[in-house]
Protein backbone atom coordinates (compact mmCIF):
# COMPACT_ATOMS: atom_id res chain seq x y z
CA UNK A 1 0.00 0.00 0.00
CA UNK A 2 2.62 2.51 1.09
CA UNK A 3 6.23 2.11 0.11
CA UNK A 4 9.06 4.51 1.00
CA UNK A 5 12.34 3.83 -0.76
CA UNK A 6 15.33 5.71 0.67
CA UNK A 7 13.21 8.79 1.10
CA UNK A 8 14.79 12.03 2.25
CA UNK A 9 13.08 15.36 2.58
CA UNK A 10 14.83 18.68 3.04
CA UNK A 11 12.68 21.79 3.03
CA UNK A 12 13.66 24.89 1.10
CA UNK A 13 14.76 26.56 4.36
CA UNK A 14 17.34 23.76 4.72
CA UNK A 15 15.44 21.99 7.49
CA UNK A 16 16.08 18.28 7.19
CA UNK A 17 12.80 16.53 7.96
CA UNK A 18 13.45 12.94 6.90
CA UNK A 19 16.58 11.04 5.90
CA UNK A 20 16.88 7.67 4.22
CA UNK A 21 13.47 6.29 5.13
CA UNK A 22 12.73 2.74 3.97
CA UNK A 23 9.29 1.55 4.91
CA UNK A 24 6.65 -0.79 3.62
CA UNK A 25 3.08 -0.75 4.90
CA UNK A 26 0.77 -3.50 3.77
CA UNK A 27 -2.83 -3.12 2.73
CA UNK A 28 -5.16 -3.34 5.73
CA UNK A 29 -2.47 -2.61 8.31
CA UNK A 30 -2.89 -0.33 11.30
CA UNK A 31 0.35 1.53 11.96
CA UNK A 32 1.26 3.97 14.72
CA UNK A 33 3.81 6.60 13.84
CA UNK A 34 5.43 7.78 17.06
CA UNK A 35 8.22 10.09 18.03
CA UNK A 36 8.85 13.50 19.57
CA UNK A 37 7.69 16.72 17.95
CA UNK A 38 9.79 17.57 14.94
CA UNK A 39 10.73 13.94 14.35
CA UNK A 40 9.17 14.01 10.87
CA UNK A 41 5.73 12.50 11.42
CA UNK A 42 3.82 15.28 9.74
CA UNK A 43 6.27 15.38 6.84
CA UNK A 44 5.71 11.65 6.44
CA UNK A 45 1.97 12.24 6.10
CA UNK A 46 2.50 15.16 3.73
CA UNK A 47 4.61 12.95 1.51
CA UNK A 48 1.92 10.26 1.42
CA UNK A 49 -0.79 12.69 0.29
CA UNK A 50 1.68 14.31 -2.09
CA UNK A 51 1.50 17.65 -0.46
CA UNK A 52 5.27 17.54 -0.53
CA UNK A 53 7.62 15.68 -2.82
CA UNK A 54 10.68 13.80 -1.53
CA UNK A 55 14.05 15.45 -2.14
CA UNK A 56 15.53 12.02 -2.65
CA UNK A 57 14.11 8.52 -3.05
CA UNK A 58 10.62 7.51 -3.99
CA UNK A 59 7.21 7.25 -2.43
CA UNK A 60 4.90 4.65 -3.92
CA UNK A 61 1.23 4.46 -3.02
CA UNK A 62 -0.34 1.36 -4.50
CA UNK A 63 1.58 1.17 -7.73
CA UNK A 64 1.83 4.95 -8.19
CA UNK A 65 5.16 6.68 -7.91
CA UNK A 66 4.21 10.06 -6.51
CA UNK A 67 7.24 11.83 -7.95
CA UNK A 68 6.10 10.91 -11.44
CA UNK A 69 2.49 11.85 -10.87
CA UNK A 70 1.17 14.62 -13.09
CA UNK A 71 -0.53 17.63 -11.55
CA UNK A 72 -3.94 16.77 -12.91
CA UNK A 73 -3.73 13.28 -11.41
CA UNK A 74 -3.24 14.56 -7.87
CA UNK A 75 -6.90 15.37 -7.08
CA UNK A 76 -8.04 11.96 -8.32
CA UNK A 77 -5.31 10.28 -6.32
CA UNK A 78 -6.27 12.12 -3.14
CA UNK A 79 -9.86 10.96 -3.41
CA UNK A 80 -8.65 7.54 -2.27
CA UNK A 81 -7.07 8.91 0.87
CA UNK A 82 -8.83 10.25 3.93
CA UNK A 83 -7.01 12.61 6.25
CA UNK A 84 -7.82 13.57 9.84
CA UNK A 85 -6.07 16.52 11.43
CA UNK A 86 -5.32 17.39 15.01
CA UNK A 87 -6.99 20.77 14.47
CA UNK A 88 -9.95 19.12 12.65
CA UNK A 89 -9.89 21.61 9.75
CA UNK A 90 -13.65 21.95 9.64
CA UNK A 91 -15.31 24.80 7.78
CA UNK A 92 -16.89 27.01 10.44
CA UNK A 93 -19.58 28.40 8.16
CA UNK A 94 -20.91 25.00 7.15
CA UNK A 95 -23.04 22.68 9.22
CA UNK A 96 -21.87 19.22 10.25
CA UNK A 97 -23.83 17.70 7.37
CA UNK A 98 -22.39 20.21 4.88
CA UNK A 99 -18.86 19.67 6.13
CA UNK A 100 -19.10 15.96 5.51
CA UNK A 101 -21.01 16.39 2.25
CA UNK A 102 -18.27 18.75 1.08
CA UNK A 103 -15.91 15.83 0.50
CA UNK A 104 -18.50 14.29 -1.81
CA UNK A 105 -19.47 17.51 -3.54
CA UNK A 106 -15.95 18.32 -4.66
CA UNK A 107 -15.77 14.97 -6.42
CA UNK A 108 -19.12 15.78 -8.07
CA UNK A 109 -21.04 12.97 -6.43
CA UNK A 110 -24.76 12.85 -7.18
CA UNK A 111 -27.25 14.38 -4.77
CA UNK A 112 -28.60 10.89 -4.20
CA UNK A 113 -25.22 9.61 -3.06
CA UNK A 114 -24.75 12.60 -0.76
CA UNK A 115 -28.14 12.06 0.86
CA UNK A 116 -27.42 8.38 1.32
CA UNK A 117 -23.81 8.38 2.47
CA UNK A 118 -23.58 11.41 4.72
CA UNK A 119 -26.30 10.27 7.18
CA UNK A 120 -24.83 6.77 7.16
CA UNK A 121 -21.37 7.96 8.09
CA UNK A 122 -22.74 10.42 10.66
CA UNK A 123 -24.57 7.52 12.24
CA UNK A 124 -21.33 5.57 12.34
CA UNK A 125 -19.52 8.32 14.23
CA UNK A 126 -22.56 8.91 16.44
CA UNK A 127 -23.44 12.41 15.29
CA UNK A 128 -26.69 11.78 13.50
CA UNK A 129 -28.57 14.21 15.75
CA UNK A 130 -26.03 16.99 15.21
CA UNK A 131 -26.25 17.11 11.42
CA UNK A 132 -27.65 20.64 11.36
CA UNK A 133 -25.33 22.04 14.02
CA UNK A 134 -22.33 24.28 13.24
CA UNK A 135 -18.86 23.06 14.30
CA UNK A 136 -18.39 25.88 16.83
CA UNK A 137 -21.30 24.50 18.83
CA UNK A 138 -19.62 21.09 19.18
CA UNK A 139 -17.13 19.76 21.70
CA UNK A 140 -13.60 18.86 20.64
CA UNK A 141 -14.39 15.17 20.50
CA UNK A 142 -17.44 15.79 18.39
CA UNK A 143 -15.51 18.01 16.02
CA UNK A 144 -12.87 15.33 15.65
CA UNK A 145 -15.59 12.83 14.83
CA UNK A 146 -16.94 15.15 12.12
CA UNK A 147 -13.44 15.37 10.70
CA UNK A 148 -13.27 11.57 10.81
CA UNK A 149 -16.65 11.29 9.11
CA UNK A 150 -15.47 13.59 6.33
CA UNK A 151 -12.29 11.55 5.92
CA UNK A 152 -14.10 8.27 5.47
CA UNK A 153 -17.28 9.32 3.66
CA UNK A 154 -15.98 8.45 0.23
CA UNK A 155 -14.61 5.13 1.44
CA UNK A 156 -10.88 5.76 1.12
CA UNK A 157 -8.46 2.86 0.83
CA UNK A 158 -6.07 4.66 3.11
CA UNK A 159 -6.73 6.77 6.18
CA UNK A 160 -4.09 9.08 7.59
CA UNK A 161 -4.55 10.55 11.03
CA UNK A 162 -2.23 13.28 12.29
CA UNK A 163 -2.56 13.22 16.07
CA UNK A 164 -6.32 12.73 16.00
CA UNK A 165 -6.51 12.47 19.78
CA UNK A 166 -4.12 15.35 20.41
CA UNK A 167 -6.71 17.71 21.82
CA UNK A 168 -9.04 15.19 23.41
CA UNK A 169 -9.55 13.76 26.88
CA UNK A 170 -8.87 10.02 27.38
CA UNK A 171 -12.49 8.87 27.13
CA UNK A 172 -13.14 10.79 23.95
CA UNK A 173 -9.85 9.57 22.55
CA UNK A 174 -10.92 5.98 23.06
CA UNK A 175 -14.16 6.73 21.28
CA UNK A 176 -12.16 7.86 18.27
CA UNK A 177 -9.88 4.82 18.49
CA UNK A 178 -12.85 2.46 18.52
CA UNK A 179 -14.07 4.07 15.33
CA UNK A 180 -10.68 3.83 13.69
CA UNK A 181 -10.46 0.12 14.58
CA UNK A 182 -13.92 -0.42 13.18
CA UNK A 183 -12.88 1.26 9.93
CA UNK A 184 -9.66 -0.73 9.86
CA UNK A 185 -11.64 -3.95 10.20
CA UNK A 186 -13.52 -3.03 7.04
CA UNK A 187 -10.23 -3.12 5.15
CA UNK A 188 -8.99 0.47 5.25
CA UNK A 189 -5.27 0.88 5.85
CA UNK A 190 -4.62 3.31 8.70
CA UNK A 191 -1.53 5.31 9.56
CA UNK A 192 -1.83 7.31 12.74
CA UNK A 193 0.77 9.76 13.99
CA UNK A 194 0.45 10.15 17.74
CA UNK A 195 2.00 11.19 21.04
CA UNK A 196 -0.54 9.21 23.03
CA UNK A 197 1.49 6.59 24.89
CA UNK A 198 -1.56 5.15 26.56
CA UNK A 199 -3.31 4.32 23.36
CA UNK A 200 -0.27 2.90 21.61
CA UNK A 201 0.61 0.68 24.55
CA UNK A 202 -2.87 -0.72 24.87
CA UNK A 203 -3.58 -1.31 21.19
CA UNK A 204 -0.41 -3.36 20.50
CA UNK A 205 -0.27 -2.66 16.79
CA UNK A 206 2.71 -2.05 14.54
CA UNK A 207 4.75 0.89 15.81
CA UNK A 208 7.16 2.89 13.68
CA UNK A 209 9.24 5.28 15.75
CA UNK A 210 10.84 8.33 14.18
CA UNK A 211 13.60 10.43 15.65
CA UNK A 212 15.46 13.25 13.92
CA UNK A 213 13.99 12.20 10.62
CA UNK A 214 15.04 8.59 10.82
CA UNK A 215 13.29 5.34 11.68
CA UNK A 216 14.74 4.18 14.98
CA UNK A 217 12.34 1.32 15.61
CA UNK A 218 9.76 -0.66 13.65
CA UNK A 219 8.01 -3.49 15.48
CA UNK A 220 4.83 -5.48 15.16
CA UNK A 221 2.63 -5.30 18.26
CA UNK A 222 4.89 -2.61 19.62
CA UNK A 223 4.68 -0.09 22.43
CA UNK A 224 5.33 3.66 22.63
CA UNK A 225 8.78 3.53 24.27
CA UNK A 226 11.26 0.76 24.64
Amino acid at each position, binding site marked *: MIQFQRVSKTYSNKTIALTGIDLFIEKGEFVFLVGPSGAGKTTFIKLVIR*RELPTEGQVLIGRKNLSLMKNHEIPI*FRRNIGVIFQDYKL*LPNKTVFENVA*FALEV*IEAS*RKDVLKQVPAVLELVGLKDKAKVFPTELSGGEQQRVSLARAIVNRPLLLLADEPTGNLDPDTSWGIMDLLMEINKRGTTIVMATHNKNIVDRMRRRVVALENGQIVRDEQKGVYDI
Partner: protein
Amino acid sequence: MKAKTFLYFTKEASIGLSRNGLMSLAAVTTVAFSLIILGCFFIVITNCIHFAEMAKGVLELKVYLKENVDPAPLQAAISEFKGVEEVRFVSKEEGAEWLEKSLGVKNLFVTADNPLPDTLDIRLDPKVNVKKLVKQLDSLDGIDEVAYGKTFVEAMLIIIQIIGVLGICLITIIGLVVLYIIVNTIRLTVLARWKEIEIMKLVGATDWFIRWPFMLEGIFIGVCGTIISLLLLTKGYHLLYAYIKEAAPFIPVLSEKIVNYRMFWLITMVGVAFGAVGSTWSIKKFLRV
Protein backbone atom coordinates in the same frame (compact mmCIF):
# COMPACT_ATOMS: atom_id res chain seq x y z
CA MET B 1 -19.33 20.80 -16.92
CA LYS B 2 -22.53 19.38 -15.54
CA ALA B 3 -25.43 21.78 -15.05
CA LYS B 4 -25.62 20.66 -11.46
CA THR B 5 -21.97 21.51 -10.91
CA PHE B 6 -22.43 24.96 -12.42
CA LEU B 7 -25.41 25.49 -10.17
CA TYR B 8 -23.23 24.46 -7.26
CA PHE B 9 -20.60 27.01 -8.31
CA THR B 10 -23.13 29.82 -8.56
CA LYS B 11 -24.53 28.87 -5.20
CA GLU B 12 -21.07 28.76 -3.64
CA ALA B 13 -20.16 32.11 -5.23
CA SER B 14 -23.28 33.81 -3.90
CA ILE B 15 -22.76 32.29 -0.46
CA GLY B 16 -19.17 33.47 -0.56
CA LEU B 17 -20.24 36.98 -1.49
CA SER B 18 -22.97 37.28 1.08
CA ARG B 19 -21.01 35.68 3.96
CA ASN B 20 -18.15 38.07 3.26
CA GLY B 21 -20.59 40.91 2.72
CA LEU B 22 -18.49 43.79 3.98
CA MET B 23 -15.43 42.53 2.17
CA SER B 24 -17.37 42.20 -1.08
CA LEU B 25 -18.72 45.72 -0.65
CA ALA B 26 -15.21 47.04 -0.09
CA ALA B 27 -14.02 45.20 -3.18
CA VAL B 28 -16.85 46.57 -5.33
CA THR B 29 -16.16 50.11 -4.12
CA THR B 30 -12.45 49.83 -4.79
CA VAL B 31 -13.03 48.42 -8.24
CA ALA B 32 -15.58 51.14 -9.00
CA PHE B 33 -13.21 53.91 -7.92
CA SER B 34 -10.31 52.42 -9.86
CA LEU B 35 -12.48 52.22 -12.95
CA ILE B 36 -13.63 55.79 -12.44
CA ILE B 37 -10.01 56.94 -12.39
CA LEU B 38 -9.38 54.95 -15.55
CA GLY B 39 -12.51 56.45 -17.12
CA CYS B 40 -11.50 60.01 -16.22
CA PHE B 41 -8.13 59.58 -17.86
CA PHE B 42 -9.81 58.00 -20.83
CA ILE B 43 -12.14 60.99 -21.22
CA VAL B 44 -9.30 63.49 -20.99
CA ILE B 45 -7.03 61.58 -23.34
CA THR B 46 -9.61 60.84 -26.04
CA ASN B 47 -10.60 64.48 -25.97
CA CYS B 48 -6.98 65.56 -26.32
CA ILE B 49 -6.60 63.28 -29.30
CA HIS B 50 -9.84 64.60 -30.72
CA PHE B 51 -8.70 68.17 -30.16
CA ALA B 52 -5.42 67.47 -31.92
CA GLU B 53 -7.26 65.92 -34.84
CA MET B 54 -9.50 68.95 -35.06
CA ALA B 55 -6.52 71.28 -35.01
CA LYS B 56 -5.09 69.33 -37.89
CA GLY B 57 -8.40 69.70 -39.69
CA VAL B 58 -8.29 73.49 -39.83
CA LEU B 59 -4.98 73.39 -41.61
CA GLU B 60 -4.95 74.77 -45.08
CA LEU B 61 -2.51 74.64 -47.95
CA LYS B 62 -1.98 77.44 -50.39
CA VAL B 63 -0.84 76.63 -53.89
CA TYR B 64 0.59 79.60 -55.81
CA LEU B 65 0.20 79.30 -59.56
CA LYS B 66 2.64 80.48 -62.18
CA GLU B 67 1.65 83.43 -64.34
CA ASN B 68 -1.08 82.87 -66.90
CA VAL B 69 -1.85 79.30 -65.99
CA ASP B 70 -5.40 78.06 -66.44
CA PRO B 71 -6.52 77.11 -62.91
CA ALA B 72 -9.48 74.93 -63.90
CA PRO B 73 -7.63 71.68 -64.86
CA LEU B 74 -5.31 72.00 -61.85
CA GLN B 75 -8.26 72.56 -59.57
CA ALA B 76 -9.94 69.45 -60.95
CA ALA B 77 -6.76 67.36 -60.62
CA ILE B 78 -6.07 68.43 -57.06
CA SER B 79 -9.65 67.73 -56.00
CA GLU B 80 -8.99 64.08 -56.81
CA PHE B 81 -6.01 63.82 -54.46
CA LYS B 82 -6.36 61.87 -51.28
CA GLY B 83 -6.88 64.02 -48.21
CA VAL B 84 -8.19 67.02 -50.12
CA GLU B 85 -11.60 68.18 -49.12
CA GLU B 86 -12.12 71.35 -51.07
CA VAL B 87 -10.16 73.37 -53.61
CA ARG B 88 -11.07 77.00 -54.05
CA PHE B 89 -9.64 79.29 -56.70
CA VAL B 90 -8.59 82.74 -55.48
CA SER B 91 -7.63 85.09 -58.33
CA LYS B 92 -4.92 87.71 -57.85
CA GLU B 93 -7.62 90.41 -57.74
CA GLU B 94 -9.51 88.63 -55.01
CA GLY B 95 -6.23 88.19 -53.21
CA ALA B 96 -5.53 91.89 -53.39
CA GLU B 97 -9.00 92.68 -52.12
CA TRP B 98 -8.51 90.32 -49.18
CA LEU B 99 -5.16 91.86 -48.41
CA GLU B 100 -6.51 95.39 -48.56
CA LYS B 101 -9.33 94.43 -46.32
CA SER B 102 -7.13 92.78 -43.75
CA LEU B 103 -4.61 95.63 -43.81
CA GLY B 104 -7.38 98.19 -43.67
CA VAL B 105 -6.06 100.24 -46.63
CA LYS B 106 -7.51 101.04 -50.00
CA ASN B 107 -6.04 101.01 -53.48
CA LEU B 108 -2.95 99.19 -52.36
CA PHE B 109 -1.77 98.34 -55.86
CA VAL B 110 -2.85 101.47 -57.68
CA THR B 111 0.65 102.75 -58.28
CA ALA B 112 2.23 99.38 -58.98
CA ASP B 113 1.13 96.15 -60.67
CA ASN B 114 -0.62 93.62 -58.50
CA PRO B 115 2.28 91.26 -57.57
CA LEU B 116 0.09 88.59 -56.06
CA PRO B 117 -0.16 85.23 -57.82
CA ASP B 118 -3.34 83.34 -58.56
CA THR B 119 -3.90 80.93 -55.73
CA LEU B 120 -5.65 77.65 -55.00
CA ASP B 121 -6.75 77.33 -51.38
CA ILE B 122 -6.93 73.67 -50.31
CA ARG B 123 -8.87 72.60 -47.26
CA LEU B 124 -7.59 69.34 -45.83
CA ASP B 125 -9.16 66.25 -44.48
CA PRO B 126 -8.03 65.83 -40.83
CA LYS B 127 -6.47 62.45 -41.59
CA VAL B 128 -4.30 63.75 -44.41
CA ASN B 129 -0.67 62.79 -44.91
CA VAL B 130 0.60 66.34 -45.48
CA LYS B 131 4.10 65.48 -46.67
CA LYS B 132 2.84 63.07 -49.29
CA LEU B 133 0.27 65.54 -50.52
CA VAL B 134 2.83 68.34 -50.83
CA LYS B 135 5.07 66.03 -52.87
CA GLN B 136 2.16 65.24 -55.18
CA LEU B 137 1.38 68.94 -55.61
CA ASP B 138 5.00 69.81 -56.33
CA SER B 139 5.05 67.37 -59.20
CA LEU B 140 2.21 69.17 -60.99
CA ASP B 141 2.94 71.55 -63.87
CA GLY B 142 1.98 75.20 -63.53
CA ILE B 143 2.56 75.41 -59.84
CA ASP B 144 5.03 77.93 -58.57
CA GLU B 145 5.07 77.11 -54.91
CA VAL B 146 3.19 75.16 -52.30
CA ALA B 147 2.98 77.17 -49.12
CA TYR B 148 2.12 75.81 -45.78
CA GLY B 149 3.22 76.76 -42.35
CA LYS B 150 5.82 74.06 -42.66
CA THR B 151 7.17 74.21 -39.16
CA PHE B 152 3.74 74.76 -37.71
CA VAL B 153 2.21 71.82 -39.51
CA GLU B 154 5.11 69.55 -38.73
CA ALA B 155 5.21 70.57 -35.10
CA MET B 156 1.48 70.02 -34.93
CA LEU B 157 1.83 66.54 -36.41
CA ILE B 158 4.53 65.67 -33.90
CA ILE B 159 2.45 66.97 -31.02
CA ILE B 160 -0.51 64.95 -32.21
CA GLN B 161 1.67 61.84 -32.37
CA ILE B 162 3.06 62.48 -28.92
CA ILE B 163 -0.40 62.97 -27.47
CA GLY B 164 -1.47 59.69 -29.06
CA VAL B 165 1.51 57.68 -27.78
CA LEU B 166 1.46 59.33 -24.38
CA GLY B 167 -2.25 58.70 -24.12
CA ILE B 168 -1.86 55.00 -24.88
CA CYS B 169 1.03 54.70 -22.41
CA LEU B 170 -0.92 56.48 -19.70
CA ILE B 171 -4.01 54.37 -20.24
CA THR B 172 -1.87 51.22 -20.14
CA ILE B 173 -0.11 52.26 -16.94
CA ILE B 174 -3.35 53.20 -15.26
CA GLY B 175 -4.88 49.97 -16.52
CA LEU B 176 -2.07 48.02 -14.84
CA VAL B 177 -2.46 49.99 -11.63
CA VAL B 178 -6.17 49.26 -11.70
CA LEU B 179 -5.43 45.56 -12.29
CA TYR B 180 -3.05 45.60 -9.34
CA ILE B 181 -5.63 47.24 -7.09
CA ILE B 182 -8.35 44.84 -8.17
CA VAL B 183 -6.15 41.77 -7.76
CA ASN B 184 -5.16 42.87 -4.29
CA THR B 185 -8.67 43.69 -3.22
CA ILE B 186 -9.92 40.32 -4.37
CA ARG B 187 -6.92 38.68 -2.77
CA LEU B 188 -8.13 40.01 0.56
CA THR B 189 -11.48 38.31 0.09
CA VAL B 190 -9.71 35.10 -0.87
CA LEU B 191 -7.22 35.33 1.99
CA ALA B 192 -10.09 35.09 4.41
CA ARG B 193 -10.93 31.73 2.91
CA TRP B 194 -7.63 29.96 2.28
CA LYS B 195 -8.58 27.30 4.80
CA GLU B 196 -11.53 26.36 2.68
CA ILE B 197 -9.29 26.05 -0.37
CA GLU B 198 -6.82 23.88 1.53
CA ILE B 199 -9.55 21.50 2.63
CA MET B 200 -10.95 21.34 -0.88
CA LYS B 201 -7.52 20.40 -2.18
CA LEU B 202 -7.08 17.73 0.46
CA VAL B 203 -10.35 16.01 -0.26
CA GLY B 204 -9.44 15.85 -3.93
CA ALA B 205 -11.08 18.83 -5.62
CA THR B 206 -9.55 19.76 -8.95
CA ASP B 207 -8.08 23.23 -9.35
CA TRP B 208 -10.85 24.28 -11.70
CA PHE B 209 -13.50 23.11 -9.31
CA ILE B 210 -12.00 25.41 -6.68
CA ARG B 211 -11.38 28.27 -9.10
CA TRP B 212 -14.85 28.58 -10.59
CA PRO B 213 -16.76 29.97 -7.60
CA PHE B 214 -13.95 32.45 -6.94
CA MET B 215 -13.90 33.46 -10.57
CA LEU B 216 -17.65 33.99 -10.61
CA GLU B 217 -17.30 36.11 -7.50
CA GLY B 218 -14.55 38.12 -9.14
CA ILE B 219 -16.66 38.64 -12.25
CA PHE B 220 -19.60 39.69 -10.11
CA ILE B 221 -17.46 42.20 -8.23
CA GLY B 222 -16.14 43.44 -11.58
CA VAL B 223 -19.64 43.80 -13.03
CA CYS B 224 -20.91 45.72 -9.99
CA GLY B 225 -17.88 48.00 -10.06
CA THR B 226 -18.39 48.51 -13.79
CA ILE B 227 -22.04 49.47 -13.43
CA ILE B 228 -21.38 51.94 -10.63
CA SER B 229 -18.43 53.55 -12.37
CA LEU B 230 -20.23 53.78 -15.72
CA LEU B 231 -23.23 55.45 -14.14
CA LEU B 232 -21.05 58.03 -12.42
CA LEU B 233 -18.79 58.56 -15.42
CA THR B 234 -21.58 59.10 -17.94
CA LYS B 235 -23.36 61.43 -15.57
CA GLY B 236 -20.10 63.28 -14.95
CA TYR B 237 -19.34 63.62 -18.64
CA HIS B 238 -22.87 64.80 -19.29
CA LEU B 239 -22.38 67.65 -16.83
CA LEU B 240 -18.89 68.46 -18.08
CA TYR B 241 -20.05 68.48 -21.69
CA ALA B 242 -22.92 70.82 -20.92
CA TYR B 243 -20.62 73.08 -18.92
CA ILE B 244 -17.99 73.36 -21.64
CA LYS B 245 -20.58 73.93 -24.35
CA GLU B 246 -21.92 76.75 -22.25
CA ALA B 247 -18.73 78.31 -20.93
CA ALA B 248 -16.25 77.67 -23.73
CA PRO B 249 -18.10 76.63 -26.88
CA PHE B 250 -14.99 77.09 -29.05
CA ILE B 251 -13.31 74.05 -27.43
CA PRO B 252 -14.11 71.01 -29.51
CA VAL B 253 -15.38 68.32 -27.12
CA LEU B 254 -16.27 64.81 -28.17
CA SER B 255 -19.99 64.16 -28.16
CA GLU B 256 -21.42 62.23 -25.23
CA LYS B 257 -22.56 59.46 -27.53
CA ILE B 258 -19.09 58.71 -28.82
CA VAL B 259 -17.43 58.94 -25.41
CA ASN B 260 -20.07 56.83 -23.70
CA TYR B 261 -19.90 54.18 -26.38
CA ARG B 262 -16.12 53.85 -26.23
CA MET B 263 -16.06 54.13 -22.45
CA PHE B 264 -18.72 51.47 -22.10
CA TRP B 265 -16.56 48.92 -23.90
CA LEU B 266 -13.34 49.91 -22.20
CA ILE B 267 -14.72 49.93 -18.67
CA THR B 268 -16.84 46.82 -19.11
CA MET B 269 -14.03 44.78 -20.56
CA VAL B 270 -11.51 46.00 -18.03
CA GLY B 271 -13.91 45.56 -15.11
CA VAL B 272 -15.11 42.09 -15.96
CA ALA B 273 -11.83 40.73 -17.27
CA PHE B 274 -9.83 42.14 -14.39
CA GLY B 275 -12.36 40.76 -11.93
CA ALA B 276 -11.99 37.29 -13.38
CA VAL B 277 -8.23 37.49 -13.80
CA GLY B 278 -7.87 39.07 -10.38
CA SER B 279 -9.60 36.28 -8.55
CA THR B 280 -7.85 33.58 -10.56
CA TRP B 281 -4.47 35.09 -9.76
CA SER B 282 -5.38 35.60 -6.15
CA ILE B 283 -6.06 31.96 -5.47
CA LYS B 284 -3.13 30.69 -7.51
CA LYS B 285 -0.85 30.68 -4.49
CA PHE B 286 -3.32 28.74 -2.39
CA LEU B 287 -3.81 26.08 -5.02
CA ARG B 288 -0.23 24.89 -4.63
CA VAL B 289 -1.14 22.50 -1.87
